[in-house]
């Protein structure tokens, strides 16, 4: 093939000031705003259904009280004089159950993670205990510790300590070996290795266990109150349920969810502040 013209063919692109349609940058900000709007719209739709379905009779208002009735029930509940007592009781149970349970989990987890012989000795018992679905222990704890807050705290501890224990133990066992070798090359003592390398290396896992423990402590306290109590939000929920005051049942559920949500966000915030480094295998 012969070519007369061996020059490179180029097309000239005149540079004018006006952008063409393809030049408009992708509107990331704008499109995100649209999705947010979509979510809000969906939420409003759900609330509308919540209000209208029972009122129109598609769903029995006994099973699903309309949204506005529920909100009113929530309001009257919160301002009632007996509410604060129950609220604080449950809060107290969750708080102490979580604190003691997490502490036990940490201490035992560190002991088992650091001392191999101790782990081999006790680990089967720990696993056996965990195999028991803790819910079934509730009546037992009531029988042992009575109707008061103690039995609920024990329940919260019983469910909450294991995730902390196992995560702490596994975290300490899986410290990257080259970090240990680094410390050995400096002739670091065992305590130095533990405090400067092992513990911080394990902390992401440990913290994940602690977050789980809080959720479990909440569940433990509520379940304990279901089984046998005279006070607390779980007790209230059970009582209202028995009375078929479902609007109040929903209200308590909402309050418990808010408690769980607030705790979760606090721990998430702590997580981001304390565990501030990337953890993908590093």
């Amino acid at each position: 093939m012969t070519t007369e013209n061996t020059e490179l063919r180029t097309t000239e692109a005149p540079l004018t000031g006006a952008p063409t349609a393809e030049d408009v940058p992708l509107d990331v900000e704008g499109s995100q705003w649209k999705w947010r709007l979509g979510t809000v719209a969906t939420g409003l739709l759900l609330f509308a259904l919540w209000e209208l379905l029972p009122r129109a009779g598609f769903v029995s208002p006994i099973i699903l009280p309309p949204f506005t009735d529920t909100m009113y029930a929530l309001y009257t509940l919160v301002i009632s004089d007996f509410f604060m007592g129950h609220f604080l009781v449950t809060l107290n149970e969750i708080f102490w159950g979580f604190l003691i349970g997490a502490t036990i989990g940490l201490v035992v987890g560190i002991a088992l993670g650091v001392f191999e012989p101790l782990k081999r000795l006790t680990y089967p018992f720990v696993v056996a205990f965990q195999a028991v679905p803790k819910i079934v222990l509730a009546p037992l704890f009531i029988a042992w510790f009575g109707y008061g807050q103690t039995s609920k705290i024990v329940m919260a501890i019983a469910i909450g300590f294991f995730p902390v224990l196992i995560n702490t133990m596994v975290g300490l066992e899986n410290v990257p070996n080259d970090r240990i070798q680094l410390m050995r090359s400096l002739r670091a003592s065992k305590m130095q290795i533990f405090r400067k390398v092992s513990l911080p290396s394990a902390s992401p896992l440990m913290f994940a266990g602690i977050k789980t423990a809080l959720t479990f402590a909440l569940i433990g306290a509520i379940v304990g109150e279901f089984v046998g109590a005279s006070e607390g939000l779980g007790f209230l929920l059970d009582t209202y349920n028995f009375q078929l005051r479902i609007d109040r049942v929903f209200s308590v559920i909402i309050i418990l969810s808010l408690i769980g949500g607030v705790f979760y966000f606090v721990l998430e915030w702590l997580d981001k502040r304390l565990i501030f480094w990337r953890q993908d295998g590093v």
Partner: protein
Amino acid sequence: MPSASGPRFIEGGYQNGKNETGERGVILELDSVAKTYRTRGRGHVEALRPVRLQVPEGSFVSLVGPSGCGKTTLLNMIAGLLPPTSGRVLFEGEALTGPSRDMGVMFQQPVLLPWRSVEKNVMLPAEVFGLEPSSVQERIGETLEMVGLADFSNALPQHLSGGMQQRVALARVLAYRPKVLLMDEPFGALDEFTREAMNVELLSLTRPAGITVVFVTHNISEAVFLSHRVVVMSSRPGRVAGVIDVPFDDPREIDVMRERTFTDLVFEVRELLDKHEDRSGAPAGSETT
């Protein structure tokens, strides 16, 4: 000073600005150091046959060989991190019983603690040694300047490139001025340009200061460029195949790689490696049959 049997040594084969006579103290001696592993069911595996080697103070010695030749095992034994099955490692005339704070180790990965800033990472040895942070502040600052990371003292490791992280690791080990630097393929994970730059930097940091370096690599030109002596190792079983002296003067520039002598040396190393690899049909190691 007993002369070593086994691989030949040419004293005075290198000069650095400090000592003209070429006669130096031997800071490290490997006295028939060997490592054998016992495996379940398959008897013994000879990872490294006895090595006899003398490392003069202030010299740069490379251990070059393919994977499985035992160079990392050997380095770990020199570091005191791994006990030899037979033989001993002599540091300044005394047999090693464990790691020494006069030796610094750089591993293949930077191994920086991700929750510590660059500065805090470099300060780790000082903390372990029980020194007051304020007393070492200046030295840390100096060392960070030496590796060019003075502006990054508060950065977290996750924000640094691989090359920068290795430089932090280098600063960490140089900060306490060990007499011997042990390096296990520290630049292996870096791209060629960064690696070359790091090699030049390593020379400028260690030669003038008279730091003894034992450097493991599988990159022959890197070994020849950096070292006074290249110890060539082969595998199956791991052993020293030979030792080659590199006679270039210091300070060395990248240009030295263009000289005929350089390529000849690389070729010589390669020959030694190939010669011993050909015998790999029947492993001389004692796997019990």
